[in-house]
């Protein structure tokens, strides 16, 4: 029997009924009395100076109540304090098509919509920059004046161990280029915010955000309103995946419009606008050089990445470091060099998407390991098992490893899929592929430097035995409210359904840094456990007196506090609460969590990568390729994930399956691509999210390494399981048709090209992918040439 009464059980999420019945109140479901409807005017130009904005015609339009522009909020903002380069609405210059320029508040949506057409904006076009290559070279065009070299946002170089010695000692060196196409989160709930500035001169903002605390800080900075007069309430997010973890223009615009009109103002983005808000997966070009001994032991890795950041910083500095930081935590690497460059381009800003910055290098590295295994005639699964980074160790880049279950994940996969026997044996057109990965359970450092807890929680027990947990976490569908309730219930000996959760409210709940970097279970879980254990001590003291049983013999479960040696001797939780309140006064306790010191290095750039515990995972994909049409079908993905301990296995499996689905979509079809400066397919009809009919059979295997520092041993489960799925599918396609796909997505066109069937003169290829920075498939200037030609032709037609 389990030592737990709540942990490890497949209980329904505490908020699932609200979500299933439609009771859950998303931001767009809120209709405060007197509410105005807001809409943003967006830039139609990829790169232009704003010469003039005239809102007078729009203001005169009946039903329009207020309009704000960039000039009203010129303060720089952005999620990372060191790289704030955005304004709430564009000031002086626009840098991508879709950038917010002005905000309108009107009596209804139609009027707001009409008013946008009446705002006159005069632009002076500037030459746009669309590709990594152009951005690196174009000194004459500056998207941001702050770039020292061309349009470089950030350049980082880190080196650990004896790289030259490592390569010199290698028996075999592989040098491969990869390209990972950009893609976006596509949450089904579009972003929405409702602001209300009350007669008490206080602002309340209900918004679909993952980071209410960081947004709170930015609102203060941009609006010039003290934080004590601002309350941010994170509404339930209908999916976020990293796409709601920046402060956004519509949030500030709604707030300022409400301050101006003293009426509530709602701005809900339409689907197309969500594609412009973006902050999704960076397109990344990569070069990976890896040296190995004959037996496969890695001697050195030199990893280089070039990230296409889009028009603004977002989390870009962290993303850049993340592309290089986590390659070392899975397999032993004695010498490691990382060079990373992120550039600005005139496209919607890229940011963090599930797997933040680690997904692209993991894809490249795991594809390369598959090649190395083949070069050395090793079984890819067995090979990975032999080179694992050990538990309780330090990596070459000084990251502390504690629990490490990658080996167990690989074993579980082999048992479940018989990968090693089936690889190479399925016949042409069918294949099986494998990859491993790791992820963080929360970033080791906060986004702004401070010594305060990363997560705080407060628990109150009422006189009827009800328990309220307050924590600043944001419920984004991942199950954080349920996690808070489960951890508190386990510690207090009640059930999650007895717990009221107040989350994501900056006024009611202590700060939690937010639902990003898979930090909530580990950090908020520990904070809640800390608070609950304090109350447990008070309850046990009271129960001990009542039962005349020493405290150390007491246990709590199923709403009882009982004698371990004689469970029939018990006091009900509700009664214990009354006894404890009589004895100790009001039952409130606060808890907090801060990651331990010394989990990473001290060099510049060491802040990205450390975490209190890494999750590990591996996946096996089974695919079929239609050799005539090039259609790739993924038949099954099996993912084994070391989550430390599954607080709720059903929820963990849901996260593993959701991650596998998302990774599958990224490699098979999804791409955030542009024609000139225009998003090519900003709709859910054309941005090809897989449907349930397309999705492979998904199997999740939970592996428990029971982490010593995690709450009840838990680590993250929400992001890591995405990473191995992408290279596993690429490796499976190789097993099926003998072609290496060193770029994503793997489209039918590329498969036909590789098979020599793209056209009548086609020749079979063994690899699809870039050969260098400029040797990619597309000439970066093509788009521009096309744009110019099309404009010129249009002009000629007008003249004639």
């Amino acid at each position, binding site marked *: 029997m389990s030592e737990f009464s709540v942990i490890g059980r497949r209980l329904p999420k505490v908020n699932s009924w609200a979500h299933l019945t439609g009771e859950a109140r998303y931001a767009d479901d809120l209709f405060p009395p007197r509410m105005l409807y807001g809409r943003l005017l967006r830039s139609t130009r990829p790169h232009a100076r704003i010469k003039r904005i005239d809102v007078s015609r729009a203001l005169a339009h009946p039903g329009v109540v207020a309009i704000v522009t960039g000039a009203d909020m010129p303060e720089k903002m952005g999620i990372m304090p060191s790289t704030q380069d955005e304004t709430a609405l564009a000031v002086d210059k626009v840098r991508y098509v879709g950038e917010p320029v002005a905000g309108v508040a009107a009596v209804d949506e139609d009027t707001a919509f009409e008013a946008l057409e009446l705002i006159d904006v005069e632009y002076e076009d500037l030459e746009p920059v669309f590709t990594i290559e152009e951005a690196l070279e174009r000194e004459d065009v500056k998207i941001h004046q702050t770039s020292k070299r061309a349009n470089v946002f950030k350049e980082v170089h880190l080196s650990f161990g004896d790289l030259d010695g490592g390569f010199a000692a290698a028996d075999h060196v592989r040098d491969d280029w990869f390209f990972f196409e950009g893609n976006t989160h596509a949450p089904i709930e579009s972003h929405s915010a409702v602001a209300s500035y009350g007669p008490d001169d206080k602002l309340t903002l209900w918004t679909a955000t993952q980071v209410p605390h960081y947004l709170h800080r930015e609102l203060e900075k941009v609006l010039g309103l003290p934080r004590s007069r601002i309350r941010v309430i994170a509404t339930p997010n209908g999916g976020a995946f990293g796409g709601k973890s920046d402060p956004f223009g519509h949030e500030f615009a709604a707030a300022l419009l409400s301050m101006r009109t003293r009426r509530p103002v709602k701005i809900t983005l339409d689907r197309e606008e969500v594609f412009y808000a973006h902050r999704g997966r960076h397109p990344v070009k990569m070069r990976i050089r890896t040296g190995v001994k004959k037996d496969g032991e890695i001697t050195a890795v030199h990893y280089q990445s070039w990230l296409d950041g889009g028009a603004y910083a977002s989390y870009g500095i962290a993303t850049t470091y993340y592309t290089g930081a986590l390659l070392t935590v899975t397999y032993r690497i004695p010498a490691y060099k990382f060079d990373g460059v992120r550039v600005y381009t005139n496209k919607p800003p890229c940011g963090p998407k599930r797997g933040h910055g680690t997904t692209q290098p993991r894809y490249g590295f795991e594809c390369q390991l598959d090649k190395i295994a083949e070069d050395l005639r090793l079984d890819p699964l067995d090979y990975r098992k032999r080179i694992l980074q050990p538990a309780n160790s330090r990596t070459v880049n000084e990251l502390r490893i504690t629990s490490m279950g990658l080996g167990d994940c690989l074993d579980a996969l082999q048992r479940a899929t018989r990968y090693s026997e089936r690889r190479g044996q399925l016949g042409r057109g069918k294949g099986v592929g494998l990859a491993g990965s790791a992820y963080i359970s929360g970033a080791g450092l906060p986004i702004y430097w401070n010594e305060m807890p990363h997560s705080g929680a407060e628990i109150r027990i009422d006189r009827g035995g009800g328990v309220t947990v307050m924590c600043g976490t944001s419920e984004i569908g991942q199950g954080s409210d349920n996690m808070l309730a489960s951890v508190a219930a386990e510690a207090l000996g009640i059930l999650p359904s007895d717990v009221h959760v107040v989350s994501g409210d900056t006024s009611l709940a202590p700060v939690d840094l937010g639902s990003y970097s898979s930090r909530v279970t580990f950090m908020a879980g520990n904070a809640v456990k800390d608070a609950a254990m304090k109350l447990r001590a008070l309850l046990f003291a009271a129960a001990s007196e009542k039962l005349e049983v020493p405290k150390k013999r007491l246990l709590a479960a199923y709403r009882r506090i009982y004698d371990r040696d004689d469970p029939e001797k018990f006091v009900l939780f509700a009664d214990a609460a009354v006894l404890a309140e009589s004895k100790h006064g009001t039952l409130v306790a606060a808890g907090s969590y801060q990651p331990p010191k010394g989990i990473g290095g001290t060099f510049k750039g060491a802040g990205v990568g450390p975490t209190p515990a890494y999750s590990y995972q591996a996946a096996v994909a089974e695919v079929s390729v239609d050799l005539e*049409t090039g259609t790739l079908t993924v038949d099954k993905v099996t993912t084994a994930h070391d989550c430390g301990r599954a607080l709720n296995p059903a929820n963990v499996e849901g996260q593993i399956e959701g991650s596998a689905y998302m990774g599958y979509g990224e490699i098979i*079809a999804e791409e955030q691509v542009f024609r000139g400066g225009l998003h090519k397919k900003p709709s859910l009809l054309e941005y090809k999210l897989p449907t349930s009919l397309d999705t492979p059979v998904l199997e999740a295997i939970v592996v428990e390494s029971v982490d010593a520092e995690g709450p009840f041993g838990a680590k993250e489960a929400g992001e890591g399981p995405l990473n191995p799925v992408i290279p596993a599918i690429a490796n499976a396609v190789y097993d099926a048709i003998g072609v290496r796909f060193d770029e994503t997505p793997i489209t039918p066109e590329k498969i036909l090209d590789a098979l020599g069937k793209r056209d009548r003169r086609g020749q079979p290829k063994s690899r699809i992918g870039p050969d260098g920075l400029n040797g990619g498939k597309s000439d970066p200037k093509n788009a521009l040439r096309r744009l110019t030609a099309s404009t010129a032709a249009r002009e000629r037609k007008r003249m004639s």
Partner: protein
Amino acid sequence: MLRLPRFRVLSPRSYEEAAQLLREHGAGELDRSRGTPTLRIMLVAGGTDLFPNMKRRQFAPELLVSLARVRDAAGIQQNGQLDISAGTTLTAIANDPLVRERYTALAEAAGVVSTPQLRNMGTIGGNVCLDTRCNWYDQSLFWRTAEGFCMKTNPDVVCRVATSSPRCLAVASADTVPALLALDATIHVEDADGGRDVPLKDFYQEDGIRATTMRPDEVLTDITLPDASGWRSTYLKLRDRGSFDFPIAALAAAVRHDGGHVSDARIAITALGSRPMLVEAAATPLIGTRLPDEVIAIAADAVHKAARPMDNTSGTISQRKRAAYVFAERALRSLRAA
């Protein structure tokens, strides 16, 4: 979210009344008062394609004539030939036992249009009259403003797909049409003065803007398919996903067997040009054969030659052309006599 433009709805109870309304309200006239020119009055049946397009302001008629309340607008009747009323939903066609058995290609095509919800609303008449599609055209007003519009919504602008093209290259995208072509459909249209029958193969033209020969004051009322005794047919569709998506290449084939030999055949394609079409050069070589591989290859070559996709849908030109070839092969192989 995107909002519909303001409009009024007229709900006639009969096709005659609908045709009268079209005439009274100046069907075919362009309204130039609201940005890009738009038809003043349009018909709406299921609305599954029309309303999203209106939200994106691809057109914004001030009047819609809804066919939802027209009496006897839906139903499938057999008396030697098959009569399908234009208002029959795609779901009803896909599920009809007779259509599934005798006119298999049509049932298959109707069953793979978009999603179940849209098939429940969408009608066969609406699908036959579906607006042509293009990824420069099926975009929001904001997007098209940023782009500078295209020929299909603004006569002063070039075709974005091929700037030298004298005509609009938007793509025929209706699933049921190649199936109906392969099954030799005739359609019946009515205006205020009366009706006319048009063989479906003469209904479409190679122009993304004026894609059909139907006049703006006409209403499509019925579709007739001849007796299908001895015929077998099938429909194959290329799309990115198992649901939602319009075809990016599609082929329907129908073959009549007589004593083990093919006595008649029709092959039709769509989503490979502005016009859905019968590929006669693919059908002729099949006559008198038992569909051996080498004859199928000749037919597939003819289909490949007839397919003229442009870079204005998802997928790529070569992928779609290749699919046309492969689908011809697969469809004909599946139609060999047992």
